């Protein structure tokens, strides 16, 4: 069963966070759409240097949780703190410490790669923006595409642009919703290594959703299994399968994804 690792902290956004300090603290988070509970009493934290995998079947509540963290969806109950700042009360200040990349939120296709990065750099208030953009273009092998409109890029290239945007403000909290879904295996491996290094060297906490269990094992320090809006399991992805009598993480995923559905399925006429 889930263990809640969320802890209360004082608000201390100034200066870089120390390794191991919580960057995201979620306590008692719930969201209902009418009678449908999209997220139910979810609590967890993400610490600096840590990559936490948020796993679960479609409709489990992963994107709802991420949207609430990003301040584009109000929680029905519970609190979300980014570097100690309550997202509900200090939305702008809290979101200045976060960023995200998601396959369903591509950047405007009628702007070029560099233009998009400049626009979002200004919105995030990034200092020395020109150098930052150049550095990210190099980091994600986008220099040759800098003047290409995002709308004509391949999905893999768009993903790399999204990742570059996500790192613009050197976020303390990075939310990645299936970040490697459109990448070829070679690029995906490079991106995984970059993100893994980012967590450790750049003092960043990462919340990662993926349906690729191999990737989750390779990247995540800890995983949370979400099903029907609740956290059912939490632990080290390399140890959890054995602890629960499964051979692989994928097998465990399938079992957990199907088990809670069984009672409802039986009840249906």
């Amino acid at each position, binding site marked *: 069963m889930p263990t809640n690792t969320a802890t209360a902290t004082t608000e201390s956004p100034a200066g870089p966070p120390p390794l191991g300090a919580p960057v995201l603290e979620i306590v008692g988070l719930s969201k209902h759409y009418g009678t449908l509970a999209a997220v139910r009493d979810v609590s967890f934290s993400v610490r600096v240097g840590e990559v936490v995998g948020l796993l679960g079947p479609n409709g489990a509540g992963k994107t709802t949780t991420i949207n609430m963290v990003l301040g*584009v969806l*109000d929680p029905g109950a519970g609190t979300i703190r980014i570097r100690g700042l309550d997202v509900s009360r200090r939305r702008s200040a809290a979101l200045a410490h976060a960023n995200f990349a998601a396959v369903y939120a591509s950047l405007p296709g*009628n702007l070029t790669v560099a233009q998009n990065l400049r626009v979002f750099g200004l*919105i995030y208030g990034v200092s020395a923006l020109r150098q930052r953009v150049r550095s990210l273009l190099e980091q994600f092998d986008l220099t040759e595409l800098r003047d290409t409109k995002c709308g004509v890029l391949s999905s893999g290239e768009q993903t790399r642009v999204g990742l570059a945007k996500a790192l613009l403000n050197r976020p303390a909290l990075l939310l990645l919703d299936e970040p490697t879904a459109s990448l070829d295996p070679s690029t995906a491996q490079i991106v995984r290594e970059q993100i893994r290094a980012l967590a450790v060297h750049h003092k960043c906490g990462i919340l990662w959703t993926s349906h690729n269990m191999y990737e989750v094992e390779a990247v995540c320090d800890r995983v949370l299994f979400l099903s029907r809006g609740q956290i059912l399991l939490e632990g080290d992805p390399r140890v959890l399968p054995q602890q629960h009598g499964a051979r692989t993480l994928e097998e465990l995923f399938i079992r957990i994804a199907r088990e809670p559905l069984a009672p409802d399925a039986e009840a249906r006429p």
Partner: protein
Amino acid sequence: MKLRPVCGVVLRQYYLLRGSPIRVVPMFAWVGVDIVLWGFITRYLNTVGPAGVNFVPRLLGAVLLWDFLTRIMQGVTVAFLEDVWSRNFLNLFATPLLVSEYVVGLVVTSVVTSLFGLAVMLVLATAFFGLSFLALGALVVPFVLVLFLFGIALGILGSAMVLRWGPASEWLIWPLPALIAPFAGVFYPVATLPHWMQAVAAILPPSRVFEALRTVVGGGTPAVSELAWAAALAFVYVLLGTLTFTSVFRYVVRSGLLARYSAESVG
């Protein structure tokens, strides 16, 4: 409110115009067509109308000012719709960007694009049809200011409607100026209207501007209190528009509509 996020919103619109110059055409094309059409109508009316009555400032001046208001409104809504069309809300509002910064960015964009349109209209109307706003003297300033503020208010209100009811409601905002025009007395005195329409006209700032325009063209002096009242009303409309947008934004965040605007699904 910070300057850099506002610059980000404006810069995006600048890049759009620079990357696709065809977007510049609507800024002056339709208002230009209007000026040419009404320019010839007024020229014709001057030949058949009573001697001594000049229709150019009465009709062409009114058309120019009304088109300016429409252009201002569209400047705000088109900038907003660019984010709707490119499904950009999640990217924008998952940032530290404040709603006020976003709205100010839209307004600044509209000011720049509308001034461009106004300049083209003035050149056409003056060069080809002899319209001179210089004859209005300093009154041009309050006229333009009131219409500018009311256009901004309409633009913000229209954007709030699309934010609330979704991209399909875009068609609702285009006819807004046409719906208001009969009440605003753009081409005729408000006294021409039935009583109930006059009551509506009384709370519309443009109606006072066009009444004042007709007074000036007729050789009179408009009451300063009327223009002051129009300006105050226009400020109230801007305030109401901004409050409506903010309130709608809170609603779409609470209900999940904002997240659904961009996300394929809300899991």
